[in-house]
């Protein structure tokens, strides 16, 4: 029993799981809901691809606390994000900002769709505009009759 307790206490590696602690939850459900939404969009900087809500790392806990403190202090969502970006850079945002460096990221796929779609449509329309099939000549009609065995 004691051995188990010690072993468990020796735990250093965090298992991925929702890491928000009951003690962190804000009293105001509206603010807490905002904190959770924001938390889902902030990256845990010491983890592989986890949001701060999902990580039980120390730094994630600090960031969650900071988010809630700023919300209680009256910051808007955008201000909370700016707070984090000022300290950790764009890297901390799980939704990349829309700026010059990320234009290709945001617009790349829709652009491909538009360009490809336009190209296909143009080809289809151009093909329709091609000369319509000319009617058969008399000789060709005779050949057709023989081929069809009539």
């Amino acid at each position, binding site marked *: *029993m004691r*051995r*188990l*307790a010690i*072993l*468990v206490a*020796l*735990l*250093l*590696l965090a*298992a*991925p*799981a*929702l890491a*928000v*602690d*009951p*003690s962190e*939850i804000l009293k105001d459900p509206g603010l807490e809901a905002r904190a959770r939404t924001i938390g*889902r*969009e902030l*990256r845990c900087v010491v983890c*592989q*691809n*986890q*949001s701060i809500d*999902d990580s039980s790392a120390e730094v994630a806990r600090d960031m969650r606390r900071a988010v809630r403190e700023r919300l209680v202090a009256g910051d808007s969502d955008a201000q909370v994000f700016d707070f984090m970006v000022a300290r950790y*850079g*764009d*890297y*901390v*945002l*799980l*939704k*990349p*900002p829309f700026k010059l*460096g*990320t234009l*290709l*990221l*945001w617009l*790349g*796929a*829709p652009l*491909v*769709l538009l360009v*490809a*779609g336009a190209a*296909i*449509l143009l080809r*289809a329309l151009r*093909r329709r505009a091609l000369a319509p099939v000319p009617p058969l000549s008399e000789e060709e009609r005779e050949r057709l009759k023989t081929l069809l065995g009539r």
Partner: protein
Amino acid sequence: MIPELGHFALVLALVVALLQGTLPLVGAQRGDRRLMAFGDVAALTQALLVASAFAALTQAFVTSDFSVANVVANSHSAKPLLYKISGVWGNHEGSMLLWALILALFGAAVALFGANLPESLRARVIAVQALIGVGFLAFLLLTSNPFERLAPAPPDGNGLNPLLQDPGLAFHPPLLYLGYVGFSVTYAFAIAALLEGRVDPAWARWVRPWALAAWCFLTLGIALGSWWAYYILGWGGFWFWDPVENASLMPWLAGTALLHSAIVVEKRDSLKSWTVLLAILAFSLSLLGTFLVRSGVLTSVHAFAQDPARGLYILGFLLAVTGGGLALYAWRAPSLAPGGLFQPISREGALILNNLLLCTLAATVLLGTLYPLFLDLLTGNKVSVGPPFFNATFVPLCAPLFAALCVGPYLGWKRAELGPALRQLRLAFAVSVIAAIVAGVAIDSRSTLAAIAFGFGVWLIVGSLAEFAGRIRLGRGPVGDSLRRLRGLPRATIGMTVSHAALGVVVLGAVATAAWHLEAMQTLKPGEAMRIGAYEATLSGVENVQGPNYLAERATLVVTRDGQPFTVLHPERRLFTVQRRQIAETAIQTNLLRDLYATLGEGDRAAGWVVRLYLNPLAPWIWLGAALCALGGFISLSDRRLRVGAPTRKRTLQAAE
């Protein structure tokens, strides 16, 4: 002794693969029947050899032979047998061997079941398959030898990552690899067709069963991975847009496009270059996934140990396979004879739209996954691309896809009218809108997007079923008439309806779980209770339990519903003694309409334990739907037309040309 035999078998397999990859190609070029037939024999031999090597490695794991380095690194004598076996592929070297095995088995399958293929095509397909095998076998033997010995042998091993000691995850890699490698066969078909300079309906008919099989397995593999993540990661999420998840989604999207595009080639001899490109891309994206996971260019919770040297090799291999394929494509595809003409509004047009949207979805995932790498290299700026990005870009693109999905089957080939098709779907549309409104109003008025998405799910189901009902004239004549039509329907049509409707089931499950789940979290001391929805859970106690290779804290949660006893849940926190890793085991009670989900957090007797409860509506539908989707694919696969009476190329007409 046995590991050495396994090693030797691999070397022999490489030699056979080299021969198999060259001689049949020469034979097909020259019309030499003996050389072409050699391909069949070689394919079977190679499969046998690689299977022996795999058996040797499995034996080493099962008997806990700690003189083999791979076993030491990934196994432990106290591990249960199932995980000793799944540990064979739970590491880099072993999983590469599994790749090579499935590659060889598929090659043998082409040799055994490809009797209806013309000799030269079959020879080329088997040869290309072998060349891919050469790459993997060489990689194994040169950089990732699973049979390396350790002297002196340590007394015990390091154990398997506890996250992998799970039945779901034991089967996830084999299923996934069956999908990835299945697409190697369609790739081989594409290369063979480009080499021959001919893509025609016969080719499309031959390719289809392989594409279907690969697609079905990949669907199951991805679904299993998602389900595993759901029940092991402890908070009800099932898709995280992690790079490695994305790496499996991209070939799936390309494979789906391939399946549908091949239909157009088969029925109308059109969209050839696009179909061939998709066949090359599907496998290339599989290889890209392998590269991303094992090279270390991206961080991911899934990634194997990073090794840039390995990464360079795999990159080279990727370049050879994909680059070679695309170069051949650039050279030969422009001269493929164009096929039947059609109007924009037609089944062909709908399938082009389908292709376009699926490819754009794949491009979105690719861009999102690789962008941080590119931006970092070019500018040094670091950005993260996470779930919020994909939710904003991927999900909206699904809307036109889903909308068109139900309309497409109503459109005829070559030329069709939208009006009658839409008229037939009026009821489905109405039902979907009502469902969306009900969902929005009755369940959660805050999220209109979720309600709309829910409507799309209903649309997919009702629209597909409506089309099916129309086909068998259900309700428009005597029931016997409908039953007769049902019996006469080709299995491929039934499969299509099942898969399309199943997609709707998945959408409903995903939307409901993601948008409308309930969550409750509290610190409980023994005897205290908490509520979620209509349920009340009392923590009656937490005891310490000894497992085969772990120690666990096991909680007993007595759940009542409206005062009546309902169930008892036992969430655990397991500490694996060898690796000193802790994993939470969730406890899930499901009635197939919703999951009641409990996890145990940290705590002790004095302060109490953190208990988290979730009610996930329709969560089981995500994986039931995915399984149903794959089932539809298997139903299509069993269509007689794919096996019997497969077309031979019409020789008489060719002679006349």
